[in-house]
Each structure stands twice: as C-alpha cells, then as structure tokens.
C-alpha cells in the first residue's frame, strides 16, 4: 500500500505540490524564527563575552527593587551608581592585580545640529581608560585615546556620518551640547556588528561630567593576581563593599547581561512563533480541504482497491502515508525557506539602517527537528478526517457512475457538533476575559483555545450560510459578468462544504486582522479622547523617539522662552510600592495650568500643593489599595531609599489613560529621592497659544538638546500613536502570511474543481464560451469565495473585538470602517490572484474534453 500511496502522489504532482505549499509557509516561519533568534542570541553572547574580557570580578550598584538579579553593570544608566572612593579600596586588596572604574550613559552625538541615530538602536557611551588595555573591549583603529573633553567614536558611525579624527563634534547627555574633538576611531572587539548602536568613549572625568555622575562610578572591573580564582577574588572584595553595591565574577556578569537580552529575545521568539502557529492552523484547514476534495475525486479508485481486497485499515494507511509524505516534503522545503527568510531579514534590517547584531547565522539541530515535526504532525492531523471518510467507501462504488464519498455522519449531527464547538469556544473566550485573577498567561491561553474552537466551529457551521452568502456576495459578479457571473455564483454554491472550508481559511486571517484593526482603533480613539480631555496647554516636549526620557534641564531651559506662561514636566522612574515594582511619576507645581484632571477626592489645587510629602493617585489604584485622602503610602527607590508620602487627592483618569503612574509626587521630592531624575513630558502653555512663531521660539530655545522635540497637541497625539501604528503594521504583515496560506487554499480548491469539472467546462466551451469568459467565470468564483471568507471573518473579528472592548477599559468599541473597506478590497485582490493559475488551466481545456473525458 505504501508504494501505492507514493505512486499516487507522483501521478498527482501538481495537486500534491499545491497541497504542500499551504504548510511550507507556516514551517518556514517556525524555522525562520528559530534561526533569527538563535543568531541574535549568539551575537549578544559574543558581545558580552567581549565586554567582560579580562575581568575576573565586577562591582556594580545594586538596584534595591530587584531581589537578586542585578542590571547590567555599567551598561545601564538606571542602575544606582556608587562613590568612587571604593576604587582605591579595591586596588589596595592583596589579590587585586588591576582595577578600573567606569561610568556609562546614553550620549547623543550631534553633527550639524542633528542627533545621530540609526533606527531605534541605542546610543552607548562609557568611559575608557587606555592605561588598562586588558579590560578594554574597544580597539583603537585610528587616532588616539580621548583626553579631557575629547571623544572616540566607533568606526561604523564615523563611516556613515563621515566623522574624521580631529573633527569637532557635539555630545549631549544630561546637559546641553558640549563640543568635543574626535581623538580617535575605535572598533568593538568582537567580530560581529553591534547592531545600529553608536559608541562613544570618553576619559573618566569627562564621562562623569557628561552623565551627571561626578565622584561616582557605575562599575569597577577587577583582574586577579595570577593563581587567584575569580571566586576567591569575589570573596575578598565582598567585606569592603558599601551598602547598595554587589560583586560578581566576570563570567557571572556576562551571563547576567546576556540573560537580560535573552528574556526580550524569548518574548520576540514566542511572539513570532504564535504567528507561525496561526499560519500553520490556516494551513491545516487548506490541507484538510484539499485532501477531502482529492479523496472525493478518487472515490472510485478506493472502491476498486476495496474490491481487490484492501481492507479499511489499508485504505486509511494509504491516505495517511500520502499525507505524511506531503507533510515531510513541505516541512523540509519550509525549513530551508525559513533559513533564507532569516537571512533575508538580516539583510533587510541592514538595508533600512537598523543592523541587527550578527555574528553569523546559527542553524541548530533543534530548528530542523521542530520544523519537520510540526510540518508532519499538522499535515497528518489535518488528513485524519478525509482519511476516515475514504475508509467508508463501499466496494460497489467501483462500478457506479458518479459515485460520491459517504459522509462520516448525518448533516444534523454535524451541525449540532459544530454549534456546540462554537458555543464552547466563545465560552472559553468569555471565561478567559472575565474570570478575575487568571494572569496574562491564563487569559491568553483561554482566549487562544477558545478562538481555535470558534474558528473550527464557525468553519463547519458556515457551510450552512454559504449558499445564501454566495447569493448576496455573487450579486456584483452577476451584474458584471452576466451569465458567466451567474455560473460562477452557482459553482460557488453547488458544494457549500467545499466553499465553506476554502473560505474559512481566509476567514481566520481576516477575523484576526479585523480584531487587530478594531483594537488599534479603540485604543487610538481612547487615547485621543484622553489627550483632549486632559491637556489644556499648547505644546509638549518629548524625546525624538517619543518615549525616552530627557534631562531635567530641558524643562528649565524651555521655561526661559519668551511668551511662556507655564511649564510643567512629568518625571518618571520605577519604585516599589505596596511590595511590587511600579511606575512612580512626579509633577511640577505648575502642572495644573497645562493638565486638567477630574477629581474624585481633592481638587486641581492638589497639583500645586503636593509639597515635600504629598502624593495623588487614581481611583482604580485607590480602590485596590483602600486609599483615601490622608492615607500614608511609602515607596522604595532603586537606590534603596524609603520615602513616605500622604495621599492628598484621588483623580479619575480618562479611559485612554493619563501620563501618570499609580502614585505621583512633587518633582522636588522626586529629585531628592531618585539618583538621576529625568523628564518624560514637558507641557507648555504660551501666550498666543499654538503659533508658528511660538513653535520656532521653543525650538530655538532647545537648540542645545537635539533629542528634544517640540510638538503641538495634534502632532503629539500623532507621535504618541505612531508606535502603536508601527506595531499594527508588523501585526498586519505577520497576519498577511496567514492570508497568503489561505490564498494557496483557494488556488488549490479551484484547480481541483476545474479538474473535476473538465467535462462541464469542455461542454461550455463547445457551446460557445470563449476562453476569456472561462477565465472570467473562474475569477468570479474565486472572488466570491474570497468575499465569503472575508465577510465571515470580519463579522467574527467584530464579535471578538466587541468582547475584548467590553472587558478592557483602554479599548473603546469602534468599528474601523476605512480599514474594513481596505480589507474587502484586499480580499477581492486575493481572489483575483488566486484565480490566475486555475483560470488559465480552465481556459486551456479543449472543448473536445467534453466528449472524450471520462
């Protein structure tokens, strides 16, 4: 029987290939994700190994908010700094051969008045000490190491922006721009690229001044005397450490640093794999449908096998072997397509100027194993139902004209089963959404399982409404195509189950796309509402990338602009409040002139009278923690300081959120409590409101801060949601892959239908249908099928979106009509593309086939 299956596959090459294509994309996405993330992980590992080269022990500040893990020592300006006096003590220890102290920050290099940035890559800056080359991860490739008020820049940035040794370049970190001489160009030690990050090195005093860390250090790196183990060195350092600092071996430190990037990469990987899963799920629909059709067409063949003595198990095995081979081939092809996909992505990111860290493509055995297993399992699982149907073929069908495949159960029972599945699916979604205390994983899990059940259930149910939907959605086809359009519509209706299955693959993609569009529209409209109800000022200053923080001096500087009547900044940092890490914000006393809050307890006057111990909170947080006016709240800062405040007001934030964390204090208190206060937003009110002159005046005033961006209210809204919009585009691209898979499904069904209707199409050609009309007929059928999937998908997406909107306050129920119209147009295009190949095949059938085909 196995040979029979293989022969059968070989003789139906086209059909087998078309079926396999549906699974190739999903598998490619799986393997591509693994290759991409493995490669980036390896690149980061090698970067951190280079960074901690020659280091036996590292001393860093300890973030009081973290229980054990430290942040990346010296790489993160948010880790508390410590007094530089420690360095001398460390150097005095008997087993220490050498030690250097360093500070780090995020300086912007400024050329011709513009900050240099590549995509979203960070700007890394740190102190370098040429006296201790053994610790250095940088190699000087031109010029010399930096002296006071000098800088070294990485060769990549220098090349892109034509920076040469001896040039003068602007550097801006915590203060206004400082002009520095470029002393030399450096190369990062490891072979790979650092991504699009810019590197800047300074001598220690310059770096401390730039980063506002005079007399402080972010890390001390220690090398042990020969024969002293890193652990012994660590043990020796421990007793002299002041509070708020910690020591790790160099190896541990590199590992910790790598771990912190790995947790992001793990998220990234899970995210991509989820979309691969969706594409595979859609692919399984396509496979199941294609196999159902081919098996139906081979009813007589199975019956003949049965008359020749094959038993049911052999028939089952024959079909499953066929599916296995298809799955295996598709998986192997998908595996390599994924490999190319990952390579392509590296080049793509490179081309748009956002180089990913790369030290060669990593191809792990795990990637191949998972990809092939997934491809084979999905295909074989999808083939189970058609395979079981094939076993029900009676031997007598071998001698019957027009024998059809027996159904596995009665229509009524199938209907009830589909209905139960759909209802259970919705129940799971509702449970996931509304059951309190499930946690993110629980909510997503219940929703995911529920959505899968709903998709399968609706796909099975939709055969019921396909005839009616085809009637309605076929109307344009009939209007445009006349008799040909009517034939197309009837063709779409004649086998509702087949059309429903084909359309369902597209339905899944469209439902998800609609859901995403709805959520985005809901969030955006809520956000706009929030800004409109809160903001009563004229301008907002944020960082160029809309989310980084800016030095406090930005607020002070902009306040000096002529015509400014009020300036108020919002600072933000992390703190531990009521035992959990949360955002803590702070406001200037003038904030009330730029933001109008709705107060549940207290009044707008609270904003200007927070003083040294006042705080306000929002109604939700107040309810959760039973806070009233007068309630005491204490919080812990990253440097380990405990601060006590009293609630003076409770406000009600709009549905779209507010710029505030759960607890907000005065900026005066904030500046004394946190190591490095920075502004998230600076709100400005001016005489004359929004005007070109005012905008220009503000921009002129902020000349020294190239990373600051002045924007009016509507620009601010646009900028804040631009991040959401790019996220939305990424989601669209990823979901488009599922739509492409379903496009293959339509191609497949049409090719099989054309094959099945050879005689019919031949007859139509014989009685006068032209080739063009034949193509048009197939195109119309394809578009009708696509529209059925689209309309069902959009409807389902809206229902799912409504459920989410009912649960999540930040999301407004709003139907993005514009986007939906685009989706419908896109679906028509998908239908037209899917029809190209089948239509050509149909039009090439010769009328003679009507008479001779049997």
């Amino acid at each position, binding site marked *: 029987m196995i040979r029979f299956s293989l022969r059968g596959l070989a003789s139906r090459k086209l059909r087998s290939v078309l079926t396999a294509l549906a699974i190739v994309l999903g598998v490619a996405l799986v393997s591509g994700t693994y290759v991409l993330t493995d490669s980036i992980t390896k690149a980061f590992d090698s970067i951190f190994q280079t960074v901690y080269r020659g280091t036996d022990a590292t001393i860093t500040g300890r973030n009081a908010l973290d229980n054990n893990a430290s942040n990346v020592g010296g790489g993160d300006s948010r880790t508390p700094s410590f007094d530089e006096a420690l360095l001398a003590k460390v150097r005095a220890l008997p087993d220490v051969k050498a030690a250097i102290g360093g500070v780090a920050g995020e300086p912007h290099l400024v050329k011709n008045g513009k900050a240099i940035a590549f995509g979203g890559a960070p700007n890394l800056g740190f102190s370098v000490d040429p006296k201790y080359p053994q610790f250095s991860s940088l190699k000087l490739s031109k010029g010399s190491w930096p002296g006071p008020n000098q800088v070294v820049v990485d060769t990549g940035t220098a090349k892109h922006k034509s920076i040469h040794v001896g040039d003068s370049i602007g550097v801006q970190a915590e203060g206004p721009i400082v002009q520095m001489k470029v002393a030399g160009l450096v190369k990062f030690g490891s072979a790979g690229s650092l991504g699009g990050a810019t590197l800047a090195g300074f001598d220690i005093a310059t770096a401390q001044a730039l980063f506002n860390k005079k007399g402080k250090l972010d890390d001390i790196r220690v090398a042990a005397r020969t024969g002293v183990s890193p652990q012994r060195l660590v043990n020796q350092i421990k007793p002299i450490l002041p509070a708020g600092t910690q020591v790790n071996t160099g190896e541990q430190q590199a590992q910790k640093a790598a771990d912190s990037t790995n947790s992001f990469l793990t998220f990234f990987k899970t995210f991509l794999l989820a979309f691969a899963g969706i594409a595979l799920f859609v692919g399984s629909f396509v496979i199941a449908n294609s196999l159902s059709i081919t098996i139906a067409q081979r009813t007589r063949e199975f019956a003949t096998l049965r008359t020749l003595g094959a038993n049911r198990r052999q028939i089952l095995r024959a079909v499953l072997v066929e599916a296995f081979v298809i799955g295996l081939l598709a998986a192997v092809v998908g595996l390599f397509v994924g490999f190319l996909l990952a390579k392509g992505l590296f080049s793509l990111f490179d081309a748009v100027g956002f180089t990913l860290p790369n030290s060669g493509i990593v191809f792990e055995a795990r990637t191949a194993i998972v990809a092939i297993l997934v491809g084979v399992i999905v295909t074989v699982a999808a083939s189970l139902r058609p395979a079981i149907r094939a076993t029900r073929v009676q031997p007598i069908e071998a001698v019957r004209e027009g024998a059809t495949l027996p159904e596995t159960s009665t229509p009524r029972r199938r209907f009830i089963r589909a209905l139960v599945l759909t209802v259970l699916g919705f129940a799971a979604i509702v449970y996931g959404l509304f059951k309190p205390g499930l946690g993110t994983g629980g909510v997503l899990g219940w929703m995911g399982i529920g959505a899968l059940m709903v998709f399968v259930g609706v796909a099975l149910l939709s055969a019921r409404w396909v005839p009616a939907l085809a009637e309605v959605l076929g109307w344009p086809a009939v209007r445009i195509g006349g008799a040909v359009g009517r034939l197309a519509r009837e063709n779409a209706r004649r086998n509702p189950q087949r059309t429903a299955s084909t359309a369902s693959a597209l339905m899944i993609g469209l439902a998800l796309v609609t859901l995403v569009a709805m959520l985005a529209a809901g969030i955006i409209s809520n956000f706009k509402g929030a800004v409109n109800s809160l903001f009563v000022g004229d301008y907002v200053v944020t960082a160029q990338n809309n989310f980084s923080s800016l030095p406090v001096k930005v607020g002070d500087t902009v306040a000096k602009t002529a015509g400014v009547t009020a300036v108020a900044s919002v600072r933000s940092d992390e703190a531990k409040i009521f035992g959990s890490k949360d955002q803590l914000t702070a406001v200037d006393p003038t904030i009330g002139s730029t933001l109008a809050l709705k107060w549940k307890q207290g009044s707008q006057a609270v904003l200007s009278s927070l003083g040294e111990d006042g705080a306000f909170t929002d109604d939700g947080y107040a309810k959760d923690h039973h806070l009233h006016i007068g309630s005491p709240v204490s919080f812990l800062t990253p440097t380990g300081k405990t601060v006590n405040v009293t609630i003076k007001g409770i406000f009600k934030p709009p549905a779209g959120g507010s710029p505030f964390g759960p607890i907000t204090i005065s900026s005066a208190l904030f500046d004394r409590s946190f190591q490095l206060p920075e502004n998230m937003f600076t709100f400005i009110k001016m005489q004359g409101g929004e005007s070109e002159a005012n905008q220009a005046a503000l921009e002129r005033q902020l000349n020294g801060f190239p990373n600051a961006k002045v924007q009016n209210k509507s620009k601010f809204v646009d900028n804040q949601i631009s991040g959401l919009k790019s996220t939305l585009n990424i989601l669209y691209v990823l979901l488009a892959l599922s739509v492409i898979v379903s496009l293959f499904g339509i191609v497949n069904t049409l090719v099989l239908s054309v094959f099945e209707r050879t005689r019919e199409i031949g*007859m139509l050609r014989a*009685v*006068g249908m032209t080739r063009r009309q034949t193509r048009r007929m197939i195109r119309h059928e394809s578009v009708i099928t696509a529209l059925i999937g689209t309309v069902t998908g959009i409807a389902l997406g809206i229902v799912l979106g409504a459920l989410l909107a009912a649960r999540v306050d930040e999301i407004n129920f709003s139907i993005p009509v514009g986007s939906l119209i685009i989706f419908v147009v896109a679906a028509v295009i998908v239908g037209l593309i899917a029809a190209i190949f089948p239509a050509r095949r149909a039009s090439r059938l010769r009328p003679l086939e009507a008479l001779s085909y049997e």
Partner: protein
Amino acid sequence: MERGRLTGVMGPSGSGKSTLMHILAGLDRPTAGTVELDGTDITKLDDDRLTKLRRDHIGFVFQFFNLLPMLDARENMELPLAIAGERPDSEWFDQVVEQTRLGDRLTHRPSELSGGQQQRVAIARALLNKPSVLFADEPTGNLDSSASGEILDLIRRSVDESGQTVVMVTHDPYAAAIADRILFLEDGRLVREMTDPSSDDIIGVMKELGAQ
C-alpha cells in the same frame, strides 16, 4: 453534408467517425483539408472566432447530456444564449419547448429528470440558437430503448418540420435508420454511402465491413 437533411456517420470503433465530427464541428483541427460552413473555411479560424462560430451556428447533443447540475432545465436550455449575452426569441422558445414536450419540466434540475428528459433538454438547448447544423454524438448511447425512440423521433422531426441540418454519429443501426443518408467510415476513410436506409440494410453493410 446536405443542408436540411439528417446525415448519419457510422463505422466500427476506431474508424474515425468521432474525429470526423469533431473536425466538422470546429472542436478539432484537421492535419490536412478544409471544412466550410456557410461559405466560411472554419479550419482557418482562431480560437475566439471558432468559439463564436460554435456559439452562433452549431448545436451539440452529447452522449452524456452534459447539463449543468446546478441550473434548472430552462436555464440549461438558455445557457449558450446567455453566454453570448443574448435573450431567446420567446416564440421560438415556446415552439422548442413544445417540440421537446418539456413544458412542465422547465423548473426542474437535471437530477430531477429522467435520462430521456435530460437529453430532450440538451436537444432543446442545441435548437434554441437556430444552429446551421446540429451535431449529435451517440445521442441514444446512454438511454434505454423507449427513451431512445423518443429522442430519435425528436431529432427526425426537427429535420422534417423545421428543416434543421443534423449530423449524427452512432453505432446503433436502429438509430442510424432515421438518417436520410449514411456515411460509413473505416480506418479513417469513407468506404460506403447509403440513402434512406432501413436498419436491416445498415446491419447488412456493418456485417460486410466487419467481415473484411
């Protein structure tokens, strides 16, 4: 082929009778020679013109009826006209329906019709665009004897009453007996011709040819 007459084409399997008909009907192209229909050499036409020629001037009746299962009888009959974007002449439509005795079956789908009824729908479909010539390929090949009789009668009457030109390929001597003229083919050659034959005459010739 003579205009207004019924020509039968006979011959053993493989004699080329189907090929002849396919070429005559513009479904296939000859390697040599020409086919003229109403003064047009149809072997020189491209696919589009040939399709239009078939649509406007040629009617087909197939052995397996070849009706579209999702259309009812009336829609099946009007299909070629609909494809051409034309409406049937209602007087002629009524006349054809009467001739084929399908008046009470117009809204039935093929699956609700007997074989004979289905073939009558197919004939009505072929007659409705008033073809210059109607080709019938084994029209009774898939029918029982009483239905066969009905169909043959119908074809004969279309010749007698409306002057329809018909070319019928068959290997059934009783069917062939309704022809005005019969062409016998063997190995792709015309070997015998007969006018106003009886079924016995035909059987005789068939035996003779088979015996050679």
